[in-house]
């Protein structure tokens, strides 16, 4: 089935870029106007509108419009006050005191106060919330004390320097404690925040409707204006097919689309009625992580050889038409404390790859040029989940082709998502294709440190450290970075962690995940919120 849909997707993309029609004419405007409805189209429907539950990217895109966070993050990674006007941290780094704004109310009339902060953090940490992202990011959380109405004291069991960074994410946004008292599934349908818009309806598989919150005057410090949002209403439409989404924008049926496919990017640029808004996401970039638990990647030389046999830059210019930048290190360049020295560590170098493979003993070759050692061919198994986009697949086909030239037999194995998840949980892969979006360099602790190897034994279950990398020196550095709030010290430690990770050749990193929008010229001031680079429509206005 999935192959059938892939073929459909490919054909549709080809068709859509050939079609080109004109938008309705619109007035040029220079001053923001209030009112109007904006239609936004996205690819995936959130499974639950409460961003605390699960915590997948489509949820945070909607959440950004209707919840506020305790703190905000600007483009440089600096943490700014938002619902919390200030904060202090204890000497041991385990007690955080937050001073809160006095004038914030949720859209159901419940006041925002210290009890609300407590209710929210408790809700995220409660296993019954089924929170994968928010709950996972505050594993250190133990409890909150309500000191007075507008002072909350949050206790953690270990120091956590990235705490403010994760609090800035919409996943950890503040919801009405009264609404949180309802059952989880009820709250999923109609969560209540204090944001510039409020959820008024959700027609499954079709659209989510958000209306302006007229009382809003506590916008984030990163916003372009103050006071209530300019739009009256947002219609958040779900159009899974990338080409159909782009065609809907061209036809003027929708005003903004996200997840613009690479094939449509050039036609979108050429269309005078459209403009583009793009930002790279911070975190661990799109990658293939090599499994160190089994041959051939137990041997660091073979890992380096594989990384250096993959012509990623070539693939980016052919598959992504040069629209996507390269991310060569373990962190995307937009991540705080990114170290540019690791950028070219694994660049394409087939001659060095051949030398390394010779040294590692993979000298003999089969009739079709695949290297062997003791009669075992040099095979690399890569499970490919059906939800991967067509362009990611083509990228890996290019890697397959270039790695073949140095003697690797790369086998791309297509399967449905649950099957691939199952294989991943059993460490049954040589390369795992993935990424991890978050606004902190602490992401390296999740993807490379031994604390994230999962439970031991053959029935290992989940593990985020997909390489099975375990290096006490790395663990010590990455954990130490959480203990200090001194930016200079964190910078040094994270730079060292990046150097170790890239020297171990744990991943083929390809390009940063990105938010890519195409917008009608009638739409202005759509902003990309810096902490996770999700769309913010708070400042947006529309002329027609």
């Amino acid at each position: 089935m999935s192959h059938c849909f892939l073929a459909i997707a490919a054909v549709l993309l080809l068709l859509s870029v050939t079609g080109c029609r004109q938008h309705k004419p619109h007035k040029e405007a220079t001053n923001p106007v209030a009112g109007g409805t904006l239609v936004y189209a996205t690819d995936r429907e959130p499974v639950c509108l409460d961003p605390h539950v699960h915590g997948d990217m489509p949820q945070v895109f909607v959440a950004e419009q209707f919840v506020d966070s305790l703190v905000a993050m600007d483009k440089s990674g600096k943490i700014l006050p938002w619902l919390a006007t200030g904060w202090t941290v204890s000497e041991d780094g385990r007690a955080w005191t937050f001073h809160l704004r006095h004038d914030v109310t949720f859209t159901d009339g419940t006041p925002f106060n210290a009890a609300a902060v407590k209710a929210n953090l408790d809700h995220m940490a409660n296993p019954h919330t089924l929170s994968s992202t928010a709950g996972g990011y505050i594993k250190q959380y133990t409890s909150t004390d309500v000191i007075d109405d507008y002072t909350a004291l949050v206790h953690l069991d270990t120091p956590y320097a990235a705490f403010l960074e994760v609090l800035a994410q919409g996943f950890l946004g503040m919801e009405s404690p009264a609404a949180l008292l309802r059952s989880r599934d009820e709250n999923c349908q109609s969560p209540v925040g204090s944001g510039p818009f409020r959820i008024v309806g959700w027609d499954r598989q079709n659209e989510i409707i958000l209306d302006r919150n007229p009382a809003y005057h506590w916008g984030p410090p990163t916003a372009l204006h103050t006071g209530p949002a300019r739009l009256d209403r947002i219609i958040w439409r779900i159009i899974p097919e990338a080409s159909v989404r782009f065609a809907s924008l061209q036809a003027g049926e929708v005003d903004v689309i996200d997840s613009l496919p690479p094939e449509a990017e050039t036609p979108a640029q050429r269309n005078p009625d459209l403009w583009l808004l793009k930002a790279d996401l911070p975190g661990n970039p799109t990658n293939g992580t090599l499994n160190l638990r089994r041959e051939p990647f137990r041997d660091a030389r073979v890992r380096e050889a594989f990384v250096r046999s993959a012509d990623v830059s070539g693939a980016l210019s052919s598959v992504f038409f040069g629209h996507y930048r390269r991310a060569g290190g373990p962190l995307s360049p937009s991540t705080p404390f990114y170290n540019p020295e690791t950028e070219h560590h694994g660049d394409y170098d087939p001659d060095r790859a051949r030398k390394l493979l010779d040294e590692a003993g993979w000298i003999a070759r089969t009739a079709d040029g695949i290297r062997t050692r003791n009669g075992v061919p040099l095979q690399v198994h890569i499970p490919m989940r059906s939800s991967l986009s067509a362009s990611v697949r083509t990228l890996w086909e290019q890697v397959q082709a270039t790695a073949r030239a140095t003697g690797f037999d790369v086998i791309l194995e297509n399967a449905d998502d649950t099957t691939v998840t199952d294989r991943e949980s059993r460490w049954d892969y040589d390369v795992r294709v993935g990424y991890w979006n978050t606004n902190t360099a602490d992401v390296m602790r999740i993807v490379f440190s031994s604390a994230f190897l999962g439970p031991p034994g053959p029935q290992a279950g989940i593990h985020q450290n997909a390489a099975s990398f375990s290096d006490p020196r790395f663990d010590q550095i990455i954990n130490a970075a959480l203990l200090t709030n001194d930016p200079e010290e964190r910078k040094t430690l994270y730079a060292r962690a990046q150097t170790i990770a890239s020297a171990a050749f744990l991943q083929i990193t390809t390009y940063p995940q990105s938010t890519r929008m195409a917008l009608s010229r009638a739409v202005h001031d759509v902003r990309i919120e810096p902490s996770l680079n999700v769309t913010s429509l708070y400042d947006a206005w529309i002329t027609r």
Partner: protein
Amino acid sequence: MTPFFLRMSRVFAKRTLNALTVLFAVASLCFVVLQLTPGDPVLAIMGGGATNATPETLIAARHEYGLDRPVLVQYGLYLSRLARGEFGQSFSQHMPVTEVLRVQAPPTLELMATAFAVAWLFALLSVMPTVRRRYSGPLASALETVCAGLPPFWLGLLLLWAFAFELGLFPPAGTRGVMSIVLPALAMGIPLGGFLAQITRESFDLALDEPCILTARARGLDDRTVRLRHVLRHALLPGVDLSAWGIGALVGNAVAIEMIFSRKGLGRELFLAVSNHDMPLVAGIILFIAVIYIIAGLLADLLRRLIDPRLKASYS
């Protein structure tokens, strides 16, 4: 000779028993297939291998959905709940399965009904005026064969490209208004119409040789009236039988068509439910489809009796 009502109630009891057996088999098959597919529903729901959920959260989820029980216990509970009409809560959608069906079934049924109407309209218009016509006959017959062979998803792509992308006559996506249903209904209806036309053409051809037709002509009726009033009635039966199958085919095609046209509906929901191993939702949708199948079979049977009075006698 047994009284009429007893005869009918026997027929009815037999039919109900058949329907229940079918539903039981469908429910069991559904359970077995989802058990056999590898993977853990909880991991699928919580974001796959990259989930950052704590072990406590995963345990809570397994317990909530009853996935920590032995498989046979799960199967027993599943059947007994279904028998009581409880479809349960969908894990991935966070709402009762009946609610998902209530919201998602109408657009799919609407699409199927429209496609079905398109199919019969196409079949009748193509067959009635052209059978045994020197030029138009073979031409229409060839067209029907081609249409029957078209994969609906491919036809959907073509229609989408031509009428939505290029000409802009119809919206490319969505479930809003009459315009948005036209292209998907054509994509599903034309291939089915091809099948219906082919089979009706054959029976129409045979019916033209029936003695009663000769009688009708002898009474001085013109050709159009003969075809419409007399031949059609004889020729409809195989098409009606095929329609029951056709409704099943429409459900299957709805999955691809709803994905292509970004329409809301059961097909897309089923695709999502299967990829998340959402057992209650998959079972709910499949059983719903099975019920549609059974009803379609019953209706086809009734319709046959209505069209052909001879069949009424065959029960005595």
